[in-house]
């Protein structure tokens, strides 16, 4: 099985370790993984801003780069949701790009969904000594129905105790440009998330979407919490959560 890893623009710039952890996980599962050279951004920021022409340009670029693989795997519920749900909408009436967008969408997966639903539980053995709580990112949860997959995978990590926080399905307040445009509203929302995390006394909060994680980590630190670790699920599964 030859698959493309789409690392996402945010991982590329803000936390490369998530990309390498994803790579390791997929290779350990026996996949031939290619990181396509030209990838930049799936175009979601343009779409969210309401700029359809720019979103379509970037979507075409991504489709052309990614359509020749058996599968495309993305360590982000939000970007995967964009490719799976929005690309077909963008080209709904387009006779050339419509079928290509739909074909790519059907072969594109969020990382944990791919590991569980396509490969069937194939995560390499990993350890994490401590109590972990999982934040369900909105686009993965409500856009792609990802809920049980990350929990099944975390359940295989030895030493890891999963403790559900109250309102784990509540938004963390990131929302892409929202956090930059409406900073004080976003802060108010993420404060509630931080309180939920604190209420379960977790050693680490884990999620599948780097944007949410940067938001949560940034707020935890600003509130003076220097100990609760904030990790992407790929990092935990690849054994990089241990230190």
């Amino acid at each position, binding site marked *: 099985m030859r698959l493309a890893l789409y690392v996402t623009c945010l991982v590329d710039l803000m936390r490369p*370790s998530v990309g390498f952890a994803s790579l390791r996980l997929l290779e350990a599962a026996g996949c031939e993984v290619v990181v396509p050279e030209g990838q930049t951004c799936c175009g979601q920021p343009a779409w969210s801003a309401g700029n359809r022409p*720019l979103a379509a340009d970037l979507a075409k670029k991504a489709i052309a780069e990614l359509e020749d693989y058996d599968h495309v795997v993305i360590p982000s519920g939000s970007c995967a949701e964009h490719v799976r749900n929005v690309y077909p909408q963008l080209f709904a009436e387009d006779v050339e790009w419509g079928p290509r967008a739909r074909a790519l969408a059907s072969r594109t997966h969020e990382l944990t969904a791919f590991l569980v639903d396509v490969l069937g539980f194939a995560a390499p053995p990993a350890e994490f000594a401590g109590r972990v709580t999982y934040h369900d990112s909105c686009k993965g949860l409500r856009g792609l129905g990802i809920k049980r997959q990350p929990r099944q995978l975390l359940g295989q990590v030895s030493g890891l105790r999963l403790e559900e926080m109250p309102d784990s399905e509540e*938004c963390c307040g990131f929302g892409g440009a929202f956090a930059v445009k409406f900073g004080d509203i976003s*802060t108010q929302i993420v404060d509630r998330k931080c309180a939920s995390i604190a209420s379960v006394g977790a050693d680490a909060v884990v999620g599948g979407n780097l944007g949410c994680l940067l938001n949560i980590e940034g707020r935890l630190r600003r509130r003076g919490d220097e100990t609760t670790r904030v990790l992407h699920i790929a990092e935990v599964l690849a054994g990089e959560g241990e230190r």
Partner: protein
Amino acid sequence: MSAAGPSQAMYFKERAGAQVRNPVLQRALQKAKPLFVGKRAKGIAALADDDLEFEGLRTACEGIRNRVLADLDVWLAIFEDNARASGAEVLWARNGEEICERVIEVARRHGVTKATKSKSMLSEEAGLNEALAAAGIRPVETDLGEYIVQLAGEAPSHIIAPAVHKTIEEVEALFAKEHGRPAETRTSADIPAMTREAREVLRQHFLSAEMGITGANFLIAESGTAALVTNEGNGRMVTTLPKVHVVITGIEKIVPTLEDFATLMRLLPRSATGQTISNYVSLLTGTKQPGDSDGPEKTVFILVDNGRANLLGSAYQDMLRCIRCGACMNHCPVYFSLGGHAYGWVYPGPMGSVLTPLYTGIENALDLPHATTGCNQCGSVCPVRIPLPKLMHRLREEQNERGLRPRSERLALAAWAWLAGKPRLYRWATRRAARYLNWLAEGSGRIRIFGLAPEWTAGRDLPVASGKTFYELYAARKRA
């Protein structure tokens, strides 16, 4: 301040900031949110007790509303015929001004000096209370929450819980002043006593008002009936005691049959308050007939467009399915950070972020469709499956198409997209950016003040990595 003034939706961001920093409001909101969310969850879970299932019912409710909207003119004509046949008068209003004109004209015809009101958001759209007062007719809100905000001289901040933004201390101060007694220290245990006090004051108004004004949750076409879903009993007083009853509703509130109404009632109270059914459900048809023990001598329906007809056949038609349950705002992280007043017009929360631009002009509410995290908590609870995030997205697209976005935003987006289309240049730029971020972090792994995104670092740090991009490290690894 009142909702009757012009829309303040253009000042959303400023108003939102003030609300976020208002500790009294925040206390009220943090108390209310778990109640709303928990009660709805229980109500929806309890569907199983009646062998019902949420998604199936949603499909049925969505279908009923879509069927009406597909032939709205026909259903309206059927309603009008049946309402007239039962003795009611049917008037039409194109906008808020015409609503006020019609109500005042009816009031003058019947020598009305005081009107009791049950909740009506359309009367807020019209600024009806101010118009009535100016015409020498005293409007008295009788829903407890509406009564409180009327005493405070405010607009409702929630469509089903108008005074959700008020704390018990604030309500006590208002009551003490209005009811002419010294203020006391109150706890939630005193709520029944405070409610009784309001009820006693309101009772005098119920008995003396010549006109009752209500909205309607639904208009049932086959019988010409107005359906009222209430919890306090004030709706019954307003619709039976005064000699004139005026019903003001939007034209989209029609449902074809009583059977359809029964189906929608499976989800409306559960979505709103978690109740399997509200304390009162009133079906009001025509006027008092010989042998009836109560009822108005005169019933007038005012059917209102005020922007609704424009949505028919448009990209926003789905919004007209709305049955005003409030579940979208009750589950909205943005609403519960601000309360309803920041939204600047009648309707708050996700449904307000769609309706305010559509009813008051897209160019007059530019922030609202952007004030969303895209979480879709609203869309996933909506009992008639309105794709609220999609509609907000469509409004953002329309802002772009009409050139309503700021030039700086358009240029920044275009520059970024241009760069993202040139991978080699993009790699170069991101390498530089990673270095720059790392330099700003001074080796601490986080940036505390970031001039390029000041709103981000106003409330939180920006965690950064080691100064190298994934691609840079990946290329090095491949070479090794």
